[in-house]
Structure formats: structure tokens, C-alpha cells
């Protein structure tokens, strides 16, 4: 199966007063149509930067240094600005984290849906745009009345669903959801996640869910990608990740999770996340790694595919091990 999304050697830096911070360091990722992947990591690990880079929405002082984002055969990084505008939403859509404030407070929901369609197909007849918007609202299980409402008349969960509806208006190939439920209660969170899964299945899009809640990943994703200090350290299927995580960081992450069967057994990851301004040499995780070897301090590990299908960036695996 040909991947619908290919991220190749993506690198993003932020230029600050204190120096250059590599927020994304040679990240590679592939995703098939209809596949759902969760992107996890501590804050500052580069998850959100990854989403913004894929949308080509990195703003100064940040910059995409190099790399490609290929959606359905088109390299987004080589598009002109105008072409990129068209590609957003129609090729690759983004569902924001702060749904509370992501809708324009002074225009109706319907107008905000229609202007999105209009930006991509200016010649579509008005009633067709309207019909399409109403259909999207229906997909996310919102009443058609929402079309004529304002953002402040909706609850948090409803606003998040409006954002999802906007995201699927043009049936994109890839949907990026950036912590879409972080501000919601568990029940609403579950409703929103189920809505995302439902619309994803309807249009057959690939989904990237960014978050730090491993529970959400376990409940609704197919694969999990773990980021650490701007680097992708492991990509595995959910099953593999929760039963046999490969990278020591992933292992620590899984160990830190509360379990259902035994109460009171969990442990955190010792140490602190490194500053992106002065990353440790070699493997960035080595100061916190319990299995660190000498070469981890000097040599940066390469990404490799294991027999299990997991992709991992660690010296413990491969010929050298």
C-alpha cells in the first residue's frame, strides 16, 4: 500500500536570543490511508511543532530548515504559498487544541464553514456550499441549527465538534488533531474522540493525534509515535507499544502509566527533559537512560526497522548491539 503521508528528514529550528533551538530534528514518518497514529511526548518534545511544520505554519523566529512533507504524492514543502493555501484543508486538515477560542466570535458558524469552502472552490454555488456544511455538521452529530449560531452559544464539546466538521469539509487525506480534548471532561473527551474516529472512517483519511495521554492512544489509535527532544525515537503499533516497547524512553513511559489490575504501582521517569538549546551529545536520552552505553554519549543512533515492524532509534538494536 502506498503511504498517503510521508515525512522525510523534516527539520525545524527556532532562533531565540539564547541561540538556535532544534525543535524538530530529522523526523521521518509514513502513514497509510485510513491509518491512525498517535504522536506522544513530553511538553517541548516537538509534537506541536511537527503539526505546524506539516501544515507549513511555522512562523518566525521558527523556520523549516529542510525536509519534505509528501501528501498523496505532492510535496507540500515545494508548493508556492498560494498552492499551500489550497492544500490546507483539502489535502491536510488541522483540528486545533484550543477549540474554545478557535471560532470567530462575531460571525456565525455557517459563515465560517462557507468561507473555508469558498477559499478552495470559489465558483461553487451557494446552496451547494450550504448543503456540504450541513452534511459535515450532521457527520459530527450536531443539529443543523448550529449553522446559524454563534460560538458563544455552544458548549466546549460542541465547539470542538464544529472544528472537526470544518476539518472534514473538503475530505482531506490527512487530519492532524492537536490535543483536541485536553480541556474537556472525560465523557465529552470520549464523545469527541469517537466523533473523530467516525468521520475518519467515513472519509478514509489518515489521522495524526497529538497528545500526551497514552490512554487515549490505547483506546483509539492504530500506531504510536514517541518523540523525545525533537526526535522521533520509536514508531510502533499500539499493541507492540503497550506490550513490548523498544526504546528505553518508551519503556519508561509505559512503566509510568497507571494500571487497572494493580493499584499503586507506577513510577515516573527520573531526570528532566533536556533544553533544546543545548542537547546532550549522541543520543539525547542518554543522561536519563538506564541502559546507556559508552557510544550513546558520542554517537547518534540511526533509525532502523525491527523484525516486529517497530521503527526505533536506539543503539540497543541493530548490528551494533
Amino acid at each position: 500500500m502506498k503511504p498517503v503521508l510521508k515525512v522525510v528528514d523534516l527539520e525545524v529550528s527556532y532562533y531565540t536570543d539564547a541561540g538556535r533551538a532544534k525543535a524538530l530534528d530529522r523526523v521521518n514518518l509514513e502513514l497509510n490511508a485510513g491509518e491512525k497514529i498517535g504522536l506522544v511526548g513530553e511538553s517541548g518534545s516537538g509534537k506541536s511543532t511537527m503539526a505546524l511544520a506539516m501544515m507549513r505554519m511555522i512562523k518566525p523566529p521558527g523556520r523549516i530548515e529542510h525536509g519534505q512533507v509528501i501528501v498523496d504524492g505532492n510535496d507540500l514543502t515545494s508548493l508556492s504559498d498560494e498552492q499551500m493555501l489550497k492544500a490546507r484543508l483539502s489535502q491536510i486538515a488541522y483540528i486545533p487544541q484550543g477549540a474554545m477560542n478557535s471560532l470567530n466570535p462575531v460571525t456565525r458558524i455557517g459563515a465560517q464553514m462557507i468561507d473555508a469552502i469558498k477559499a478552495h472552490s470559489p465558483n461553487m454555488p451557494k446552496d451547494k456550499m450550504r448543503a456540504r456544511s450541513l452534511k459535515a455538521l450532521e457527520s459530527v452529530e450536531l443539529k443543523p441549527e448550529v449553522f446559524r449560531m454563534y460560538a458563544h452559544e455552544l458548549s466546549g464539546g460542541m465547539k470542538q465538534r464544529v472544528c472537526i466538521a470544518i476539518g472534514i469539509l473538503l475530505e482531506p487525506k490527512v487530519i492532524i488533531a492537536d490535543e483536541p480534548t485536553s480541556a474537556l471532561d472525560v465523557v465529552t473527551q470520549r464523545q469527541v474522540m469517537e466523533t473523530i474516529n467516525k468521520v475518519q472512517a467515513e472519509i478514509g483519511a489518515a489521522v495524526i493525534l497529538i497528545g500526551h495521554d497514552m490512554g487515549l492512544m490505547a483506546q483509539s489509535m492504530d500506531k504510536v509515535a514517541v518523540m523525545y527532544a525533537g526526535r522521533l525515537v520509536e514508531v510502533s503499533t499500539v499493541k507492540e507499544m503497550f506490550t513490548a516497547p523498544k526504546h528505553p524512553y518508551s519503556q519508561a513511559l509505559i512503566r509510568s502509566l497507571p494500571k487497572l489490575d494493580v493499584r499503586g504501582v507506577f513510577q515516573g521517569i527520573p531526570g528532566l527533559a533536556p533544553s533544546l538549546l543545548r542537547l546532550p551529545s549522541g543520543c539525547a536520552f542518554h543522561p536519563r537512560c538506564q541502559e546507556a552505553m559508552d557510544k550513546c554519549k558520542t554517537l547518534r543512533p540511526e533509525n532502523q526497522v525491527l523484525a516486529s515492524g517497530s521503527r526505533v532509534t536506539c543503539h540497543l538494536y541493530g548490528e551494533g548491539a
Partner: protein
Amino acid sequence: MSSVTLSNTAIRQPNKVTLFFRYLRRNPSLTFGLLIMLFLVIFTVHGLLTINTKDAYPLAVRPKMPPSFQYPLGTDFFGRDLYAAMVIGMWQTAVIGVFAGALGTIIGTIFGFISAYFGGFIDAAITSICQILIPIPAFLIQVIIAGSIDKRSVTILTMAWVVLLLAWMGPTLVIRAQVLSMKERQFVSVAKLSGMTSLGIIFKEILPNLLPFIAAAFIAQVFQAVFASFYLAIVGLGPVREPLLGNTIWSAQTQGAFFNGWWWWPIGPAVAMILILGSLALINMGMDEMANPRIRRSE
């Protein structure tokens, strides 16, 4: 919060002076404002040390002289050396501005704190008084007050008082709003839990955080005070004897300076006033930028 997490081994910070200059480079309005202000201060101080104060008053020098080496800004119809008049005028403007500005800010800060911290009836009273007074153009009230004072007894200090009377509402409302939002901040709850009293919380927890706002309010007040005293003087309600900048323009105006070809008479004080108000406005703007830095979004 920035997207960069600082680790244990914190990045070495350059010293404070370097940081300040680096900041100035990024905040041009503050830099320009401060530079102009510095120039004005040097000009005035230098002038006060070198001029003969008497030259700023009528019948001191030959009248109606255009700018020359002896009288760099010329002399006026009444026989005043306009350079000496400008130096004295700047000094007096500074006195009015700082006096009314400082007092207005202090009164406003106190009222703002009282209003926000105690709430209830006191708060309602103070805020409604401010809200009712604010739509009334201060200048017009000042005209009435200044007009009701015997012209011969108007001094620089009376000017300052007149200006001050309507200068406290702005800072009151600003500080009140700030204290109200601070009160809701969690560090105030924690201070309560740590056993601090209301008074302690006001002075030790809230006040230090408001210093930038108070400083900004002070600059804004000085601006307002200078502006107001200038307007009063320019319509002839200033202390008539004093060479206040507005007064000089007013007398040039009443003597038809342009029609008579004495163009240098009003131009000097006009430019000086523009520099004073302009530098204050720039500093104020720069401080606004400092107090509300744009928060960069991060993950």
C-alpha cells in the same frame, strides 16, 4: 511559556546592563523617547546654569530681534530673550508635569487599591465617581477652574493643582483593574494559606507586580498634565507673567506674530513642546510594549 524548557544547567545569562541595551534595540520607541528626554534634560540643565533668569521676563533685552548669535532664538515684542524664556519654560513645564503627574498617580494608585481590595460600597462609590467624571472633558472643567481664579494670582503651582484635580481617575481605574485581576491570581490564595494578612498581601505580593503599570501610569499622567497645562496656557489661562511655553505661544498669537513677521516667536516653544510631549508619548508606548510583551504560543 516558550517552547524551550530550561534544564538544570541553566543557560548563562548576560549581565543586566547588556540585557537592558539589547532590550532597547528591540524597543525603538522607548529608546528614541529616552534619548529625546535625555537631550531635553541636558538642554534645560545647561540652560539653567548659563542664562540670566531675568532675561526671560519683559523689558530685559532689545525687543523684536530675529535669531542671532547673541539671541539664538530671538527676542519678543515685550523684550524677553526667547532662549532664556524657553529654558525657564521647560523647567516650569517639568515642574507642573512631574508634580501633577506624581500626585495624580499616587492618589490614583491609593484609590485603585482601596477600591479593588475592599470592594463593596467603597468600590462602587469610587468607580461610579470615576465613570461619571470621565466623559466630562477635563480641559473644559480646567478652563472653569482656572477662569475662576484671579488671573494675577495664578502661579505655576496653582496650574499644577488645577491640572491635578482631574488627573486621578485614569490611574484609579487602571490600577483597580490590575489589582482585581491580581487578586484572582493563585499566588494570592497561596499567600493567604501561608498566613499572610490582607495588608501584607497588598504590599508584598500585589504591589511589586504592579510597579511597571504604576510607572506607565505615571508617564501617562505627566503627559496629560503637560498637555493640559499647555492648553490652558494657550487659551490665556496660564500664569500670565511666567514664560511657560504655552504662554509664550499665546502672547505671540495675541500680538499677531506671524502677521507682523516675528515668525521665530511662536516656533521655538512650539518645537520644544512637540519634543517634550513626543518623547513622553514614545516612552509611554515603549513601556506599554514592555508591560504587555506578546506571548508567543507554544506547545
